[in-house]
């Protein structure tokens, strides 16, 4: 069985993100004036084989802390999608 894991990585709120600010400003220039918040995130999809759900989540978390995420400036969320 294949288990898909989605990791969403986004900048911490307290870190001023110049890319986010630039996109927000451009949208505002295009006339979209009602945007309260804009989050630019990065998504990583992993497909695991021969592992149970618990181990998939555990390994994903290890990978995030080890390399995929810089927790000084980023937060992450892991979610699980099951496939046959």
């Amino acid at each position, binding site marked *: 069985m294949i288990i898909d894991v989605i990791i969403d990585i986004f900048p911490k709120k*307290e*870190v*001023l*993100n*110049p*890319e986010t600010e*630039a996109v927000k400003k451009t949208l505002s220039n295009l006339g979209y004036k009602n945007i309260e918040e804009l989050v630019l995130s990065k998504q990583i999809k992993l497909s695991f084989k021969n592992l149970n759900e618990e181990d998939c989540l555990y390994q994903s978390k290890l990978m995030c802390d*080890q*390399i*995929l995420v*810089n927790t*000084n*400036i980023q937060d992450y969320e892991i979610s699980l999608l099951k496939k046959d």
Partner: protein
Amino acid sequence: MRVAIIVFPGSNCDRDIFEAIKYISKKMPKYIWHKETNIENFDLIIIPGGFTFGDYLRCGALASNSPVIKSIRDHASRGGAILGICNGFQILTETKLLPGTLIRNNALKFLCHDLNVIVQDTLPSPFTWGFKPTTKLNIPIAHNEGNYYVNGNELKKLIFNGQIAFKYEENFNPNGSVENIAGVLSENGRILGMMPHPERSVFNHHNSLDGKLFFQNLMEQLLS
């Protein structure tokens, strides 16, 4: 004076550093490929600038997991001196040998020009001792992710410990770095990460010779 220069796929200032060190120390530095796991003792390890692994994932993130990093950590734990320049600085923060993170320049532009950095009053360190605090060094920058970020508590700690090595001039902060920080030291003062490129102000055809002063001072401090 034995100097190692670590080379990763995508390093592009390794030869500049090599020529600068050879010229100033009159000794040949040694290139170390990032896959090496057992490196000899050196007086100084330099991690040069570049775009290691194409800056994929985050600048320095993939390089910080290369096999050679274990040897660099061992060198650091023995109190060995390490200098990371530009992408080398990013790698040192990704390995957590230095605090903080380098994020995109606040104007979202790649910056490449000369500027002054000001030597700070620091804890004992071979990288800054020998210079009078407030000394200005004219050294070029060339980076896209040089905006140094630490949270408020960590910044207080850096200031309290005297870990800020170099600052940009007030009102001439090119990239949005907190406290105008251009370079930081480890808690024991033996590791320096800096965004400016001292190897680009060494020879007479460069715009300044202040990088030469920086390396000469560093070598005197390390040998004294």
